[in-house]
């Protein structure tokens, strides 16, 4: 919205903002309040189709799906944010050091990230989970570790590009200390590239978390999570399609929203 009226990039940003805005709003609201209890069961309301009372219908235990989607969304968003926060900070630290200084440490870190990148991320996360055990914290930790390399690469290449820039050379001549050069002179200049990768990383984290819950190793019942709901719903696709559609479309909505949002940012800068 720097150039109002030009509009070319605005559509992405606006659409992305609206979609993620709604998702975030529901997710954050879900942390504190849901229309119905997410675990209260009711035998008389098993598999109610979507209606005004239950706008997404009810599941096999008569639980309100909309409430569970809200709760699942907040779980997913919290896990996604923590994963991104963890992996992005580690990525900045490692990328900055290796990119700026280079040398043997750079070589080692890069080979390790190559190795980690060589595995499919979900598979690697599965291995970590089997070592650490199920549960929310372990999912965050496992996914956090798995996603570090992508940030390291981006941050490192940007630091390599900027470390020989004139203004950095002058700063060095003036005797600015290295830490300051790294985090005050270079870091702010790579944020445009970095934000985009954070957005993409957030999407990946959401998908990975849903995937792991779908496989039964992420968030454990009776806590709601979108992936687990999908896998539960699988057996009822024919007689209660709304059960699968609600969490499925929610994931699409969130991922699409963030994709549009990051595309909008990329085009704006």
């Amino acid at each position: 919205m720097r150039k109002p009226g030009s509009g070319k990039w605005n559509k992405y940003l606006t659409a992305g903002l609206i979609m993620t805005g709604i998702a975030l709003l529901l997710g954050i609201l879900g942390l504190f309040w849901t229309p119905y209890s997410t675990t209260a069961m009711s035998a008389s309301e098993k598999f109610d189709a979507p209606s005004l009372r239950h706008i997404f219908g009810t599941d096999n235990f008569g639980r309100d799906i909309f409430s569970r989607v809200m709760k699942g969304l907040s779980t997913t968003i919290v896990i996604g944010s923590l994963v991104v926060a963890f992996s992005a900070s580690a990525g900045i630290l490692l990328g900055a050091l290796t990119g700026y200084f280079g040398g043997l440490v750079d070589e080692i870190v890069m080979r390790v990230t190559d190795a980690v990148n060589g595995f499919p991320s979900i598979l690697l996360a599965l291995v970590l989970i089997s070592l650490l055990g199920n549960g929310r914290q372990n999912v965050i930790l496992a996914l956090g570790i798995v996603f570090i390399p992508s940030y390291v690469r981006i941050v490192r290449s940007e630091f390599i590009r900027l470390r020989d820039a004139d203004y950095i050379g002058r700063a060095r001549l003036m005797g600015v200390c290295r830490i300051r050069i790294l985090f005050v002179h270079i870091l702010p200049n790579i944020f445009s590239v970095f934000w985009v990768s954070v957005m993409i990383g957030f999407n990946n984290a959401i998908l990975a978390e849903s995937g792991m819950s779908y496989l039964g190793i992420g968030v454990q019942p009776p806590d709601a999570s979108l992936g687990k709901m999908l896998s539960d719903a699988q057996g009822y696709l024919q007689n209660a399609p709304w059960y699968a559609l609600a969490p499925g479309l929610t994931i699409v909505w969130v991922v699409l929203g963030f994709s549009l949002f990051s595309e909008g940012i990329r085009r704006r800068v």
Partner: protein
Amino acid sequence: MKKKLLSLLLTALLTTAVLGGCGSDGTGESSGNNSSTGSSALEPAGDAAYGGSVVVGIQQDIDSLDPHKATAAGTKEILFNIFEGLVKPDKNGDLMNAVASDYTVSEDGLVYTFTLREGVKFHNGSVVTAEDVKYSLERASGLLDGTPLISSLKVLTSVDIIDEKTVQVTVGGANTELIYSFVAAIIPAGSGEDESGTPVGTGPFSFVSYTPQEGIVVKKNSDYWQKGLPYLDEVNFKIVTSTDTALLELQGGSIDIYPYLTDSQANELQGSFQILSAPSAVVQALYLNNADPLLSDVRIRQAICYALDKDAVNDFLAGGNATIISTGMLPTLQSYYVDLNDVYGTGANIDKAKELMADAGYPDGFDLEITVPSNYEYHMQTAEVVVEQLKSAGINAVIRPVEWNAWLEDCYNGRKYQSTISGLTSDATPGYMMNRFQKESKKNFINFDNAEYDEVYVKAAAAMDPEEKAGYYKQLQQILCDEAGSAFIQVPAITIALNPKLGGYTFYPVYVQDMSTVYYAE
């Protein structure tokens, strides 16, 4: 620009499709299946034909192929096809002669004389001799090397060969139920340690191969002593740990028989498969570790029993088809079972639960960890319902899902757990389930400790008069229920899906999958 938007949309859709992918694939196939078989009558019309092979979906890996060492019910139900004892269970829950053609029991109940059947052959071709029987019984009872592999047989004091076709077994104490223990597999003399690699028995099917995590394949034993059986040439027991996957495999046609359907799955398959249902031999309960500091208080255990709404569990999971129980005996054992559902009621009695908790010093509730073998969707879902029910009594229960092997190791054998939702299978003897709640029983994984119970059990086992015996068993159930040894929930109905072309599936009151009577209809 439009292209960009489109591609973005597509990527988002595709990435999500990965999650739901398996689901939609399977059902896609199934609709094709429905149209080909759905309209026809689901009972196979023709006569029994010989030949063909079927794939049976099973829920868990094998714990041992050695019939004397196997303990998991999921293993025994398969080994039933490979091994036989002197006698074997029939579909009415009685015993029929198998390797033995006849037997007599002395009047004092201490000497059993078995006459071997003519011409029974092992899968390796050799004829079963008295030597083999002696070896098998001695191995199982621990007479061979001091470690009884089958604990109910440890009362055997000697096994003597009278002649080629006659074996005499002497026992230390009379027990009218002991004859049920002679279902213990007969294996070739000296084959003991080889059995776990290449099992050789006398059953209707012989062992072909076993691949861990995948399954076990057996083929027809053409020398089988029951003429005309089995019908099938080959049976493949395929391990499918998730019931969701099993449903998809059924619909996709890669499994012909699946015996562990959930209620909703049965509804979904109705129309494309034969759906058969019968009471299972499984006692499902929220088993409570009586040695746990919290659960050692009988009031806490009773509070949990009161807080459970068994009717709701039955309704949610079994569509109302299960049998609700309050004690550890199968209701199908009619002459021994006593209905104690009035003690705690089948619905929830939250006030009573809270009162007991307050008495015990926990007026505000407590934390409870429920360990559940996660490969059993049925137990997992039961746990979800139970957690919710306990919550209304202020009990904060959490589910800890574990792998089946970890469950066996930690909960069943190690007894390191607080509570667990699982199912125990019973055989057709009333003593089988009651035996395990004696203090010293190896199988007493709930650490039930009641002196009166142990006393009555000894009397029950010794009683020769059926009426008297039944009386003692009813007393045992009463103690188990009053002391709330565990929160017994239900005996689930067993619902199986059968390929519409198959016939002859037989339900047993015990937990076995008898494939010998299954056939393709012509």
